[in-house]
């Protein structure tokens, strides 16, 4: 679901970026009000969970891959505003350091995965939880919420892809950016997310939530006094398992490089050309592009990338916490 650069027109990227500004502003204000300074580190842990979940690529028939995002999970644990900022941070590190998702398309990726996903997922979760108060009510609500959340985000990404050929064409009528219209992009994105990737998000959310509940008893993590060692152990276990994401060969739909796109087969026909906007577009070279470290086996590079990414996310949130004022909590 990470939209690379040059798939969306600069105008679309700018609109999505501007649309995210109020979402970030309100989220930061809410975090300042609701989350005490010393619990800010948990947002880093949440962002690390999201970062790692996006590294587990799952293969799908047809050679494409996808992944879970974990946005609804963080929204349940720390609130949707915290989830918005946590996933934003994870996406920021991914695009800047590992070239996963475009720099120009950062606003669009944040809109889909850091705004639509956690807010829709959390809303569905709260509604379902309200009506189903049984033994497994919370797990079901979390699973269902995460499923709807990731599909809503995928749908938004599909629409963003699909409107490009309608809006941006050259003199010859060829698309300048993403060449696939809504009739192709929506089914291509949604089939995977309604089935395998949606299921992966559900499994990831329910499993980690179950673990958190077992360890902390309280699902609302902002009320838990300390991030327990078990949570860090889970993070470490996820890092060790990240090379599993390499088993899925192929590129996710809509994430091809400009060298790949000409040979992509869609609805039985090969595209056969590179859209102009992609050929002469913005090209950012990330530090560890595609989680690869030159001179090292792919799996070691992937794992090192996971470790460094997780550490950076935690450090960022720790630094942010130093700028926050101390708050007295009377409810503990």
């Amino acid at each position: 679901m990470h939209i690379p650069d040059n798939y969306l027109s600069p105008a679309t990227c700018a609109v999505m970026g501007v649309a995210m500004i109020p979402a970030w502003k309100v989220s930061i204000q809410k975090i300042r009000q609701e989350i005490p300074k010393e619990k800010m580190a948990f947002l880093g842990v949440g962002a690390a969970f999201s970062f790692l979940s996006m590294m587990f690529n799952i293969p799908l028939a047809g050679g494409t891959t996808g992944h879970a995002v974990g946005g609804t999970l963080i929204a349940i644990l720390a609130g949707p505003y915290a989830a918005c900022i946590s996933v934003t941070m994870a996406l920021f590190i991914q695009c800047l350091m590992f070239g996963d998702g475009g720099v120009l398309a950062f606003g669009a990726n944040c809109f889909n995965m850091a705004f639509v996903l956690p807010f829709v997922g959390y809303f569905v979760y709260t509604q379902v939880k309200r009506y189903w108060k049984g033994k497994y009510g919370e797990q079901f609500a979390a699973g269902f919420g995460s499923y709807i959340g990731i599909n809503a985000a995928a749908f938004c990404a599909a629409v963003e892809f699909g409107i490009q050929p309608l809006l941006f064409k050259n003199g010859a009528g060829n698309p300048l950016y993403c060449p696939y219209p809504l009739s192709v992009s929506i089914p291509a994105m949604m089939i995977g997310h309604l089935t395998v990737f949606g299921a992966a998000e559900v499994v990831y959310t329910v499993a980690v939530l179950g673990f958190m509940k077992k360890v902390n008893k309280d699902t609302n993590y902002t009320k838990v006094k300390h991030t327990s060692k078990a949570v860090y152990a889970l993070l470490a276990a996820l890092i060790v398992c990240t090379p599993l994401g390499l088993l899925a060969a192929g590129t996710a739909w809509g994430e091809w490089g400009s060298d790949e796109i000409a040979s992509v087969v869609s609805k039985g026909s090969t595209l056969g050309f590179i859209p102009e906007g992609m050929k002469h577009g913005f090209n950012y070279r990330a530090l560890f592009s595609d989680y690869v470290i030159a001179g090292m086996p792919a799996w070691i590079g992937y794992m090192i990338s996971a470790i460094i990414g997780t550490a950076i996310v935690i450090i960022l949130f720790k630094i942010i916490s130093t700028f926050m004022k101390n708050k007295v909590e009377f409810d503990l």
Partner: protein
Amino acid sequence: MIQNDIPDWLKQTQQYTPQKDKNKFIEKTQNGLLRILAKIKMQSEFGGKKIPSPAIALFVLFEMIFLTVLSKNLQFVFLLLGILIVYLAFFPAKMIRNIILEVCSGVTFAFFFSLPAYLMGNHYTMQQLVLKTAVTVCSVAIFTHRIPFYRLSHTLSKTPLSDTILFIFDITLKYLVVLGRICTYMTEALKLRSIGHNRKKQNTAAGILGVTYLKSQAMSKEMYQAMACRGFDGTYQSYGKHKWIINDAALLVAGVLILVVFIVL
């Protein structure tokens, strides 16, 4: 009976509104002193028993700096930076901010230093210089924040350094805190007693330093007498023993791994 009348001028109500005065000089001095004291205090608060052996830490620090400077492979330098970032993630938030600030200032300097080379088309020099500066400054900053000064002097005592040098080093660190506190109290007192616009305030800086010097003289005499009473004969010995902890082993393994990666890459 003698009646003491209150003079009229004393009966008058006066409304004294002191003129506003800037305390920049005092505040700056105070902040500088407090920052040093806070750094020393933070060092002793973080880690406690988990502080790794300063000798091993010093060895790994030198190894990292040496290999970074020696390396022509940017991937190796990136990896070292990655290791430092991961280690840094376990530090308290305030310490992380301080270390990052130190690294940023070093990196900014290196950036401007290599800017002419970059503008003339040599991009590699800038990458190399900025990255290597980031790694070396970060490793030194982590070391100074992680290993308390008092443990450092303990480690240095095991080296063939002269006793006199060690003694001066140790006493300097200890009295930095004691005299620093005295200075802070005096600047605080000056701030509180100075009412209204006071132009002579800056001149008192010499006074504060003078009093601090006199205090240090008195303290050094007291310390010498106390040490003489305890049988000090000029030999400076350190009696504290470092117990082997898991952090030492982890640090050693990291040191060996860094060397292996350097050779492989």
